[in-house]
């Protein structure tokens, strides 16, 4: 059951690991501190701004000496050209508008936008042509309660990912809570089918921890935006996280060779069945769905890491009240 994998997948694994290390190298060579890199080609959404090199920035800032520190590009220039614009000196978000698009979230660079847009199209079709029809059919056969249980089961199984992430973040309340949850749900929750730990009275909700977030907490920047086929929005950092999670996820080690993929596919269908309509709404609300999803991903990941950093940097009082606030 838990033996090593067959030679073929070993080869595949090895090449993907090498690829990932190349990506990691790229990522680490970027000045850390999450914000610093992402701020530069902020507006790199249009093809003509994609590769704003340092020299270009230099020449441009000669012309516009007033704002030399800012990323240059049509929007950046346009956005800053009106310094008298006092209306938007937001009292609550000072100076954010130029630097990082407001809201304190640095925009995510997108140097490989054409590739990403193609992958986005692929995933979009995958959803509408495959995932949604299958999940809809599945919904008709399996009642919602059972599907929620399946989801709980997989979530419980992914415990090592959250446990190791919490540990690597040195977030020990998180580690303890996850461990407690795992035992409670595995034993009283019938192998994780029921999330008894989240119920009122027990109050051990699932910890929001993953490896990509851990790297972020360590100060590794997001890098740039990548859309993977099937897996969706990511970045070099989060890709590395996903790869690490692959090894921490017990399902990976199941035999024979096709079981892990089948289990993953089933998990994806099950998850989709509980979220039908969400993507449609997101897409329907968007003016440019590709940009909307990229921005949502950037915001989501950024805030997830910021929240963790805040939690970790907060002076740890007695653990009890900290948990009750959570």
């Amino acid at each position, binding site marked *: 059951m838990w033996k090593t994998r067959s030679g073929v997948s070993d080869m595949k694994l090895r090449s993907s690991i090498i690829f990932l290390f190349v990506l990691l190298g790229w990522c680490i060579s970027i000045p850390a501190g999450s914000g610093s890199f992402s701020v530069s080609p902020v507006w790199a*959404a249009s093809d003509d701004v994609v590769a704003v090199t340092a020299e270009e920035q230099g020449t441009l800032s000669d012309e516009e000496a007033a704002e030399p520190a800012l990323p240059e590009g049509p929007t950046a220039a346009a*956005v800053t050209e009106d310094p008298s614009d006092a209306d938007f000196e937001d*009292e609550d978000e000072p100076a954010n508008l130029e630097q990082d698009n407001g809201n304190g979230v640095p925009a995510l660079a997108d140097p490989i936008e054409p590739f990403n847009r193609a992958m986005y199209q692929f995933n979009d079709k995958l959803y509408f042509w495959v995932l949604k029809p299958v999940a809809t059919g599945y919904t008709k056969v399996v009642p919602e309660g059972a599907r929620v249980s399946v989801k709980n089961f997989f979530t419980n199984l992914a415990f090592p990912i959250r446990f190791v992430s919490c540990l690597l973040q040195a977030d020990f309340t998180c580690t303890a809570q996850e461990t407690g949850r795992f035992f409670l749900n595995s034993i009283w929750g019938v192998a994780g089918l029921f999330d008894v730990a989240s119920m009122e009275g027990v109050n051990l909700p699932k910890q929001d921890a993953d490896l990509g977030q851990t790297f972020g907490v360590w100060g590794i920047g997001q890098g740039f935006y990548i859309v993977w086929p099937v897996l969706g929005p990511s970045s070099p950092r989060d890709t590395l996280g996903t790869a690490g999670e692959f090894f921490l996820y017990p399902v990976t080690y199941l035999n024979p060779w096709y079981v892990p993929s089948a289990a993953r596919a089933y998990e994806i269908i099950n998850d989709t069945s*509980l979220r039908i309509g969400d993507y449609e709404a997101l897409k329907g609300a968007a003016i440019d769905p590709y*940009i909307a999803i990229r*921005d949502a991903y950037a*915001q*989501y990941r950024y805030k997830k890491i910021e929240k963790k950093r805040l939690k970790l940097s907060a002076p740890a009082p007695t653990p009890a009240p900290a948990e009750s606030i959570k």
Partner: protein
Amino acid sequence: MKKHLILTAILAVILFSVPVYAATPLETIKVNVNQVLEVLRDPALKGQAAKETKKERLRAVYYKMFDEMELSKRSLSRNWKKLTPEQQQEFVRLFHQILENTYADRILAYKNEKISFDRESRVSPTQAEVFTRFFTSSAEIPINYRLTLVGGNWKVYDIVIENVSLVQNYRTQFNDILSKNPPEKLLDILRKKVKQS
């Protein structure tokens, strides 16, 4: 007659004291969301036929709850000034229509999920954020409302769903379009979008 007078007096006191008493941001959200739920749960409004009536009543709550102007301005941020006043007006109208077209159906699909109103935090005397959670069968979705004090009332100008700010999300998209095109083109895209749905 005398009774009438007293009643009128009481009514007047109630009516005129309302603007003086400013509800806290959390209370404001609670009241408005509960009004939305009331509409959605109204047994008299069942089925497809009542859908328009429901939308009509939700729109009334929306106007009371949101500061549409602020929401639009923030979504365009500095680009707002690039639009002529007429363009700005049209933008607000189109943006409203797009939001309504997308979210009305989502809101009408509500199935008695639990909502918890957790807390508020004052960012400044005129800015606040209210934290709520929405419980679906399988997940807990944090929804935050950002409010600003307008004429003694707290009004929503941004919604943050699962850490994603609606205003910022649109700002990124509008910025992307306006970095390559004049404002008229943006309005054109919005007009088409409204017509589609």
